[in-house]
């Protein structure tokens, strides 16, 4: 009886801890950027951060901290789409610049890289992101 109750209590405690972590965890990309990078400038909902890390390192850190819904790549940077924000990570000297905008402004700012993929107005790339050949299982 006592052993069973201890097991049940352990299960419940672990479940509660997992729930607390899920609820308290950092779900905002803006909060993560504020906590980890240096703010350079801001204009309304558009904020620019700077990092000494290279773009790939910044991208991997951000992806691990707050999972994006989609990622686009280009030789000029990484572009991450979240529910309300679009983040662009580009090289700047030996480090990086991180641009976060709301969805509409971010789509406009990074239009040459995400057009036709995350929205309307672009012709390039629409075929690529439109689906595969369908030959596989």
């Amino acid at each position, binding site marked *: 009886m006592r052993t069973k109750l201890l097991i049940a209590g352990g299960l419940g405690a672990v*479940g509660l801890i997992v729930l607390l972590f899920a609820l308290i965890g950092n779900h905002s990309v803006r909060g993560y950027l504020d906590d980890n990078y240096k703010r350079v400038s801001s204009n309304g909902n558009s904020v620019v951060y700077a990092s000494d890390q290279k773009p790939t*390192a910044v991208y991997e850190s951000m992806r691990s901290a707050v999972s994006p819904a989609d990622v686009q790549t280009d030789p000029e940077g990484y572009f991450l789409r979240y529910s309300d924000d679009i983040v662009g990570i580009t090289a700047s000297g030996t480090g990086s610049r991180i641009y976060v905008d709301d969805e509409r402004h971010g789509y406009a700012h990074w239009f040459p890289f995400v057009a036709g993929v995350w929205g309307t107005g672009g012709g390039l790339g629409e075929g690529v992101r439109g689906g595969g050949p369908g030959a596989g*299982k």
Partner: protein
Amino acid sequence: MRRLLVVSAALLMVVGIPGVASADVIFDQADADELAATLTEAYEAQNVCYGWLITVDNEGVPQESVGSNFGAGTRITQGDCAKSVELQASVSWTPESSESEDSASYTVVSTPGGPTTEDLEDLDLLSEDDLTGDDVDAAVYKAVAALPLLAADAGVASPIEASPAPESEASGAAPTNSPGSDFWRESGMMLLWGALLLLAGAVFAWYAIKTSRRPARRRTIGPVQEQIPDTVPPEWTPAEEAAVDPVAFAAPDPAAEQKSTPSPAAEPPVASPPAARKPEAAPEPPSARPKSTASPAAEPEPAAEPPSAEPAEPAKPDDGNTAEAPPEPPAQPAEPPPGKPDPETRPES
């Protein structure tokens, strides 16, 4: 002459048709051209050749997708490159009827050095499942487009800087297809697991409490009914009494015997053995023989019994005694409820 012309035309057609090196097995031609143009810009900025080579076993038919900064359908080996980074992948698409699964693998080949396969894996842009899935073109596109970024991080090329475009370029364009909630994407699985663990703990606790409160039940087979035989053989002796109190059994107290004599109403009639029958003048009550004194050998002879004409006959303890014994006091009547007098004690009117 006419045959020669036909053969020549056929040769021209064969030469004119693009070979298996066309990009159509993975990409649409426009997408392959766009990716090649992107790599061309990177090559011009970094002086590093980039390209891709995807060999596909398409249900037994060998096909490939090739491209580089030199154009779609052109490998980087066909150009003059001091440094090169190429994504090479091998994909096997099996028929639906085949039991074997699709398979794929990829590597990043850098010459003379540069990004590695692990560097590309860390980006989580391309996986073997992606290569065998329906969105293989999008996954390969992203992976190849990231090669210049990896080359810059590896130190074999200078990074390409970019800045946001003016919003006027995207006039009329708008994002579509909501990507969904960040919260649920980030914490959905954790919430699900936490809730499941919590539920499992609650259910297990309920089970533990329920099972601990249940008393240890004994299996009952129903009430044991006393079975009294209709006839008792004369040689029958209850084993318990003989073993427990042999002295009393040998010389029973008549008074005690009287007490142990069951009442006629409670005792079913017991057939007396033929030798124990009394004359008709002194009829034996049907229930006069107690079970405890059924044995003739242990039958005591009461003192009040007159000498019988048949000395060998075992005396009946209830003979005479039953008649001489004072009548048993009547059972105490139940106390009548207040306000309702007993009918027997009710005064006669």
